[in-house]
Structures are given as structure tokens and as C-alpha cells.
């Protein structure tokens, strides 16, 4: 299973892209926490943005144990700074 994680702001600038791909075994349904760990492992260029980062799944903040299934919209919410 591959998951494309939408990224924004400084993370997107560092990656030069608006999404990052992480891979899991076929049939696996990883948790949000596992996706964050995979981002850190597979994309060290955005590691600076992962401290305190959360995932949004289908446009809502997801708890670390939330399971992600095919078709979910997954976004990295890190280093926000409105105002």
C-alpha cells in the first residue's frame, strides 16, 4: 500500500513538492503514528517539520492510533503559523 501525504508550507518548500509517498506492505492498514514514523524514516529532508506534527485524515486531525485505508486523504499538519 502506498500513501501520498499532502504537505504544506516549509515542509513543502524543503521537499520541493506538495506530497510525499510512503510505502507499506500490501494489505497493511497503518496507523497515523506509523505514517508519521515512515515519513521520518523515508524523508529525512522534512524531519525538521515532524516534531509535534499531526496528521489529518479526510480533513480532520487524526489520533496516532487512527487506521488509514486506501482512498483516505492524508495531510501532514506541521509548523502551522497563521495570524
Amino acid at each position, binding site marked *: 500500500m502506498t500513501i501520498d501525504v499532502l504537505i*504544506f508550507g*516549509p515542509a513543502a518548500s524543503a521537499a520541493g513538492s506538495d506530497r510525499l509517498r510512503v510505502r507499506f506492505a500490501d494489505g497493511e492498514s497503518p496507523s497515523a503514528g506509523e505514517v508519521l514514523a515512515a515519513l521520518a524514516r523515508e524523508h529525512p529532508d522534512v524531519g525538521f517539520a515532524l516534531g509535534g506534527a499531526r496528521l*489529518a485524515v479526510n480533513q480532520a486531525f487524526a489520533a496516532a492510533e487512527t487506521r488509514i485505508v486506501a482512498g483516505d486523504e492524508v*495531510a501532514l*499538519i506541521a509548523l*502551522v*503559523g*497563521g*495570524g
Partner: protein
Amino acid sequence: MTVLARIVGGAVTPACEAGVFARGEGIGAAVRFEGIVRRMEGEREIVALDYQTYDPMAERRLKELAGEIAARHGLRGIAAIHGRGRVAVGEVSFVLWVAAAHRAEALAAVEEFIDRLKRDVPIWKIPVWK
């Protein structure tokens, strides 16, 4: 109690605020806060900030946050308007208006709202360097 939250294209202008600041007999304190793009970002000069939003979550979270803060502080009204896209130095990127019976809860609500905005609403700002 009125709760309003919206994200607008570019800077927040007076036209964006039209009709937002309702008054009522129970209101004894109203606070309007505006965030302005400043010229210096640390030691470097910028010409603008590009505000990026994750839509539609950003506007929904802005509205949920406004509702939570209004309930927590017993506000009579709250309105939050945030810009999206390029906002030049000196322009307004964010306006928050709160109305309450007394000033203490109005001022506390402003402080808490802005702290949580910077944590819980998916909006990013990217400097446009001079």
C-alpha cells in the same frame, strides 16, 4: 451569540469586515485585533507573506475554534477572518473581533484564540524575501 469565521483571498480589507461587528445590549466590551505583516522577519527584510491554507479544513477549524473559544469565555460574539495567498508588508492578514459582557473575558479570549490559531488551524506563512 454570533460566531463567524472565514478565509478570504489576499489581505483582509475593510470590505471583508462589513456587517461582522454586530452590537447588542448585553455587550460591555468589544475587542478588535488585527495581525499585520511586518517588514522584518528576524534579521531579513520581506516584501510579503504567502499564506497557504489546507482547504476546506482551515476554514472549518477556524470556525470550530471560534465556537470553542466563545463557549469557554461566555462571549456574546466572535468573528475571525484570515487572508489566503499573498499579503504585502503593512497589510492586514488576520482580524479577530470578540464581544463580551466584560473586558476580562474579551481580552482572555483574544489571547487564547491567537495561541490556538497558531497550533490548530492549518495555515502556513511563507516569507517572500526582498
